[in-house]
């Protein structure tokens, strides 16, 4: 009985991902055909099979030597940016005045072009981990802040009245009502941030690094090594997808009640 149940769940998952896998495969095939039929220069437009060979030969060393660093930067930046954003959201919800003063600055922070700030941070901190983590944190900050603030505000006046009838402390209201009702929003923000963090780390690496996927891509571009560039793109986006899905799995663990997840 339970094995039937289990198998059907596996089949379920397969059926769910199958369409996107098929579309992806079809695109690769079309691309391969196009490169072969048009006979375009391979150093400009590598075919998927060329990129596949590149990944086979270089993938492991890229992953160990470079992707590891990029993802370390991305994850650290994600944690830092999200933590600061959650804290700021909590402050905003409890002090409307501070929100009025500082939220415009959060918008300014968001509209600052990351590509321009990254070299600046590299000048200040050198070829270290710090500027990459900061850039990744910066890019994660805003979506988490906006969602957390909205989530922390999403409690109904009825729920407040109920807690008031129970003579609950502000602390109790915060932990028992505000935090749980904010979780669906917070996770929606975290999922966006998880993908942005990888982008942030790579952009930061462009401006000054001696390792990392961003470094590999920029170096390869100087040599017109488009195969390696594509290999780097494929690896980093695969890592981003994995990161996104880890956050999604955490979300499923945390939000078990019906209709909790906002994007379902």
């Amino acid at each position, binding site marked *: 009985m339970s094995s039937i149940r289990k198998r059907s769940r596996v089949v379920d998952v397969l059926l769910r991902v199958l369409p996107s896998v098929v579309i992806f495969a079809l695109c690769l095939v079309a691309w391969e055909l196009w490169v072969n039929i048009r006979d375009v220069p391979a150093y400009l437009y590598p075919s998927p099979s060329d990129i596949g060979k590149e990944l086979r030969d270089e993938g492991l060393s890229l992953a160990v030597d470079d992707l590891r660093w990029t993802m370390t930067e991305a994850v650290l930046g994600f944690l830092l940016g999200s933590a600061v954003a959650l804290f700021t959201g909590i402050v905003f919800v409890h002090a409307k005045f501070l929100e009025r003063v500082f939220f415009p600055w959060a918008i300014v922070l968001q509209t600052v072009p990351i590509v321009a700030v990254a070299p600046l941070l590299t000048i200040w901190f050198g070829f270290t981990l710090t500027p990459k983590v900061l850039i990744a944190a910066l890019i994660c900050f805003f979506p988490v802040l906006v969602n957390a603030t909205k989530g922390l505000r999403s409690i*109904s006046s*009825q*729920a407040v*009245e*109920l*807690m*008031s*009838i*129970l*003579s*609950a402390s502000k602390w*109790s209201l915060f932990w*028992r*009502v505000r935090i*749980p*009702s904010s*979780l669906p929003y917070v996770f929606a923000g975290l999922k966006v941030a998880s993908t942005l963090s990888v982008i942030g780390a790579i952009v930061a690496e462009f401006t000054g690094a001696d390792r990392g996927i961003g470094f590999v891509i920029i170096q390869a571009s100087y040599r017109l090594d488009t195969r390696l560039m594509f290999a780097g793109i494929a690896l980093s986006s695969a890592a981003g997808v994995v990161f996104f899905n880890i956050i999604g799995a955490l979300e499923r663990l945390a*939000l*078990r*009640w*019906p*209709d*909790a997840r906002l994007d379902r």
Partner: protein
Amino acid sequence: MTSSGGIAIEGVSMQFGGSQGVTALDGIDLNISGGEFVAIVGPSGCGKSTLLRIVGGLLEPTSGHVYVGGKTSGQARRDVEFGFVFQQPTLFPWLRVLGNVLLPDRVLGRRNPNNGPNSKDIAQELLRDVGLEGFEDHYPGQISGGMQQRVALARALSYGPNTLLMDEPFGALDEFTRDRLNLQLLEVCNKTGSTVLFVTHSIQEAIFLADRVVMLSPRPGRITRVAEVPFPKPRTLEIRYEPGFAALAGELRGLLVGDDDIELAMNQP
């Protein structure tokens, strides 16, 4: 002020949105003695929920005072004297049914007289009483509206409050379940001696449950009639077939029919 446990409502008026705004209640005076069951009936929008909120210390009236057991309603609220069943169930979707009933225990801790190793048993027994045995582990999103309202009732009873404020708690229930819960509510009140202020749209329900029925007029809500219900307690469902019951119900229904209240008029027999 009244004896311990009673409610004194003195000249309570409520205006929303400043002096140009809506007058929800106008000069409500009502004395309820300890252990009494009072039902409030009135047309939609006349201020019943507002009155309950004021008595429960959730809302300050524009003028007038409310004392509960000699305390101001705000003080009584801070001392957790009230059990409140809101018009909407107001359950927390992230807590299971049992978790919702246990919420007061978790919030109150040792301030809950039922707090202790068997507070879970008490919650489970209450769920059985409201007919929800076996649904302890469901989430509110997995049960019907009427079931949710019964969870809210169990939650309000779980910490043995002195005063119960109930805002149409059985509005979403079918007749049979409503009858059963009415009987159960009377039994609980008989056992605990709680004072009850009960809002309903059903005159039948009001007469069946209450010692006195308070009729409110359309906005602004004023008391048009306070009717003593002449049936002794404990009551059985059969009293509804006594001639006195129908006579009182007809009389009270007559008060509800205003000129502009077409819908109610059309329901007149």
